């Protein structure tokens, strides 16, 4: 036991001192759009290769308006690899969450996630701390990243974010996965069991739009038709920092 204590002391503090640092050079992350040198529908290689139809070329010809819906994007980076004009590049930022579904749709005419991120009106009732309930309905990647967000590196409890074991204690419902038909009733009853005021956060692309799983017989189309969503965290899965940043958006 003493040796273990020695080991722990030797290894020092693992917790990151920065808040939401950028991703490392090798990491790909979500795509972002560069200034408009897109040649439009003459090419449309990006929209053809995208596995989730997240990219649409709106009008043809040079300087076409390209739209990229991060709420559908799984970060496969195929658009970055294939675009001959370098319109796509990888976004190293981990502050990617949005409070508005529309602001996840990037366009070559408005490059960044728009500044509609602040919740208008009253201050959030959860300014200092939130208790979160997780309902997992997907492939476990987002769950693993959520668990990672509470490990000693990210340590989200220092920001006042706590995971609780019952919806009765929870302020925030975190939903991962595309919510297939068999989970609709369970998710609803979990939400109903939470006391007001309450917020819902869609963690990951599947929860936002169904991602790769949408429009099948299992009706795994994400949570937007089932619950009111307050914060959207895109990514497949989102980085633990993006998750922390997203949950902090309901605290502002």
């Amino acid at each position: 036991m003493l040796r273990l204590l020695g080991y722990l002391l030797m290894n020092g503090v693992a917790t990151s001192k920065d808040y939401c640092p950028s991703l490392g050079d090798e990491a790909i992350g979500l795509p972002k759009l560069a200034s408009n040198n897109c040649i439009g529908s003459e090419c449309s290689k990006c929209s053809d290769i995208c596995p989730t139809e997240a990219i649409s070329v709106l009008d043809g010809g040079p300087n076409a308006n390209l739209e990229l819906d991060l709420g559908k994007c799984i970060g496969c980076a195929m658009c970055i690899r294939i675009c001959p004009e370098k319109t796509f590049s990888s976004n190293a930022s981990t502050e990617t969450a949005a409070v508005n579904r529309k602001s996840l749709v990037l366009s070559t005419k408005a490059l960044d996630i728009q500044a509609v991120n602040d919740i208008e009106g009253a201050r959030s009732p959860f300014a200092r701390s939130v208790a979160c309930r997780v309902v997992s309905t997907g492939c476990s990647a987002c769950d693993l990243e959520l668990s990672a967000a509470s490990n000693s590196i990210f340590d989200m409890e220092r920001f006042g974010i706590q995971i609780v074991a019952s919806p009765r204690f929870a302020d925030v419902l975190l939903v991962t996965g595309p919510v297939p038909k068999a989970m609709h009733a369970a998710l609803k009853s979990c939400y109903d069991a939470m006391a007001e005021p309450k917020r819902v956060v869609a963690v990951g692309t599947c929860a936002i739009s169904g991602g790769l799983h949408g429009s099948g017989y299992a009706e795994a189309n994400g949570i937007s038709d089932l619950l009111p969503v307050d914060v959207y965290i895109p990514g497949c899965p989102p980085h633990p920092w993006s998750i922390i940043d997203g949950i902090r958006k309901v605290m502002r």
Partner: protein
Amino acid sequence: MNIDIIPIEAELRQDALLSWLNQPGKRLGLITSNDGGQIVTLLLDTADSAATIWESQMSDCKYSSLTPRITQAHWMERTMWDMFGLEPTHHPRLKHNLLHEPYEEKFYPLRKENDVVARSGHRQYHSLKVKGDGIYEIPVGPIHAGIIEPGHFHFSCVGEIIFNLEIRLGYVHRGIEKKLSEMNWQKQRFLVEAAASDSAAAYALAHAVALESCIDLVVPEKAQHLRSLALEIERVAMHIGDLAGLAADVGFLAISSSLGRLRGASLGLADLVSGNRFLKGFICPGGVIQDPDGNLSKLKAKAKNLQKELEPVVRYFLTNQVVLDRMENIGKVSERLAKDFGLVGVAGRASNQMYDVRHHFSAGVYPLLKPAIVLEKEGDVFCRAKVRANELVDSLAFIDMLLETMPCGSHSTNMPDALRANAVGLGIVEAHRGELIHLVFTDEQGNCKRYAIKDPSVNNWTGLAIAARNNLVSDFPLCNKSFSLSYSGHDL
């Protein structure tokens, strides 16, 4: 791999399969169907690395169940009933497995012609009723207290002892197999990876190998090295995570948080290879998507460092007296039951099942370089932890060896636009949980007409139900964690 397809009458399968399974090294891979008009039985010969398919044409939608004599068939027969409407008669506990009450009675998503008359009450689920004095029931789920996937556990208990555990799954059924058979192969790999993302590299590899075996494509040596590297990194990350979970469940927080930190380091290795913490998008049919050459020396140093830091933590964990008290003789699965239920991977090897796909179906680099098979005999929680710990050491040494022997050359080769017509492709991979099978059939145009996936968890969920019996309710989380099974991989 050359796969023989042998026609056999459905009713003759039982005796033939029994005599097959009685021979050493022979296994049952998968029982499924293409479109409900036949039963496809995949047989594996681990001694010769060979696979055979028995195809039984069906004129009716009923057949006599294999389960009364071949217990490991029970789960697959239930799935086949849900997906194809093929009903096994005399199945001892026939109930649906994937499609619950929200689905219509007469809905069989993979059946071509929906000509089946549904048995009334098909969708209603009845848990096994245990009767007797003092028996009470604990239902848990589908939503669990922690951050894990959904599933329903139904415990029948006497006092603090679990008498029977019934596991009901299907809550994350997303219809992936159907989607895969409707899309072109170029985009399949993304959906395959999203089927069970904690095994993304293994799924992508099985997919790539299955498609390549349809067209007899051999990928460059370098691609094979990089693929094995990705697979071993995934194994390291998940084994560390599972050991951390076990440590948390016995309340040894110093170990669980140290291992949690080291899991982060192993995800850093994945980032260096693929740009993604889960290795998503890296392995593709034809090879790998990018050559991480520039990062390999950094990767080697980091992997060495991880190996050095991991060793004392695992040693402190597995030699601690309290840990031994909690884990030894808990959640036992005997060698005989492990064989009968066809357990695979860590759970199988902890019960003395000599089966590791890297040895027995060695593809890619594994015929030349392969880690040793780690075996334990007792089949308890501690053995499963020890198998993980030893495999972790082996995998890290193996990663080092792969980097040492990394060949030069191209990291991928071109795939043709269309697959071969009327072909069969098989990909078998040792994922971190065990044997993962992807089976692909193409149609006359070379499009994929059926894509079947067998996750290692399909075999092992029954193992958990067996392990939990006669243990304390409070030891169930340990049993569960020691198996560490996938819900999404099972449900697809």
